């Protein structure tokens, strides 16, 4: 058996992988450096607002993922 890697096999699968990677990038350097300012947005520090945006974006991406997985009918 060769040294094959498991990779997505559909366009939707690749889309999900890219979304997952984008979420991880959004919460880490260098992106976190762009919101590292002592300003307030809606009364909260910018980095806190950004953190919760990333957190709720995770929910949205997983909701989309659920639709894809259930549409394609594989667990």
């Amino acid at each position, binding site marked *: 058996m060769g040294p094959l890697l498991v990779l997505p*096999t559909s366009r939707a699968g690749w889309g999900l992988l890219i979304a997952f990677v984008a979420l991880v990038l959004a919460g880490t*350097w260098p992106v976190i450096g762009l919101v590292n300012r002592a*300003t307030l947005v*809606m009364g909260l520090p910018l980095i806190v607002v950004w953190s919760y945006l990333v957190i709720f974006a995770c929910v949205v991406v*997983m909701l989309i993922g659920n639709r894809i997985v259930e549409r394609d009918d594989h*667990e």
Partner: protein
Amino acid sequence: MSSPWPLLITLTYVAIAMVIGLRARAGRSMNSLEEWGVAGRSMGPVTLYLLIAAGSVSAYTFMGAPGWAYSKGVAVFYVAIYLAYLALVAWYFGPKVWQFGEQFGHVTQASAISDRYQSPALGALAALVMAIGSIAYAVLQTIGSAYILFVMSGGMIPIWLGVVLVLACIAVYLYASGQRAIGRTNAFQGVLMLIVAWAVGLWAVHSATGGLSFAGVFERIQAEHSEFLTLPGAGGDMSFSFWTTSIIVSMFSFMPPVWTQWMSASSARTIRRSATWLPTYYVVILPMVVVGFIGIFSLPELARADTVVLEYAMQHLPVVLVGLLGAGTLAASMSSSEPFIHSVSLSLSKDVLQPMLKLSDGATGKLARLLILPIMFLVVAPLAIAEPGSLVMILLVGLGFASQVLPAFVGMFFWPRASRLGVMAGIVAGFLITTAFTILWSHPMGIHAGFWGLMLNLPVFIAVSLITPATQGEVVERFFRIAAPRGFTQRIKAADLIS
């Protein structure tokens, strides 16, 4: 503290948790690993959501995180981000782990490793070393529980007695109902923590600013201490690199209790549904952290940063809320320590003692239940009472090791060619580096020690795997029919056609 209410409220919480834990058994026999270990793979989406959420929100949320806000500032929010990323991990890996368990009969993480690499020795090694980090974690949470009882009783319940009381309560319902008790009590604790965190947070904001908006707190911080609103924080030690590598290392630390929680679900779909909504729970962190920020200007001379919420509550909040805070903090520490004690007992019985003593499954099931008693009273209790100064160090090394098991999972989910010796070599190399960069040279260049470990671990794992024999083809195929039901099987067929 002169009022009896805080202690009464806290003890009422303990009594309710015990009743819920004991009733969770509902007449079932708990002598099988399937039942005591993974609740007969029966948990629905709401219970699983609260089980994982409450398990991941430890006493750190009520004490450590506000303490970080008090001493460092917004740097504490790396925790909220990595917890959300753990939900992504649960969403992707959880359903596959559940299918491994359901189809191959695994009840522990180490069993899955042992099966994938056809190596009971590798499984036992994983179980033993994961146990070090897990016990250190349980000890830290037990110390937190005992401290809460000490404060709520006004010093009447000394730390040693608090440790014994908390462990005895957990022991009773954990022995009686196993993972079902953890599921039910965590569900109760999860709801309680959410209510208490927001009640205490909003009341504290009102007492500090006269309103209910967090804006008043942060406007004052911005005007007087703006260094708390950015990285590297007021301490100057949370660099971008430490923030980033801490998130990555924490995200890839597949701790055994989480694995057991996934295997307790009623279906793969249940895990995906629970994981999807899991990040919403982490709004529980925000109000507690805001109290930490209030402490910056209200309690500037605090000796111990992690007592900021308790100190503020005792000075400014009504006694009922102080009692609820005690109950909430105790809930957070108990809900986090019990899954670790349970998983250590389960894994030592199943993956170390069963193969070593050649026990039957029935005897192993009974042993797992009994083993919680020596683990709690001969290991966790003495360590919690002694409070060794090196405990946090042990925990850091333990968690650092947890991330070093990553190659075992790479070989389970992504790379069929991964070999037993490759995994072992990667783990050993990564563990040595993590240990050295935790104890001897702490986090060089502001990069997390576990991340340094992974940077050596993964190349060693790949190189050794490529030059040593792979696991038998039928075992690998069995795993990858679940890990990659479409991708891998199509690739196998393509590879077969080419060859």
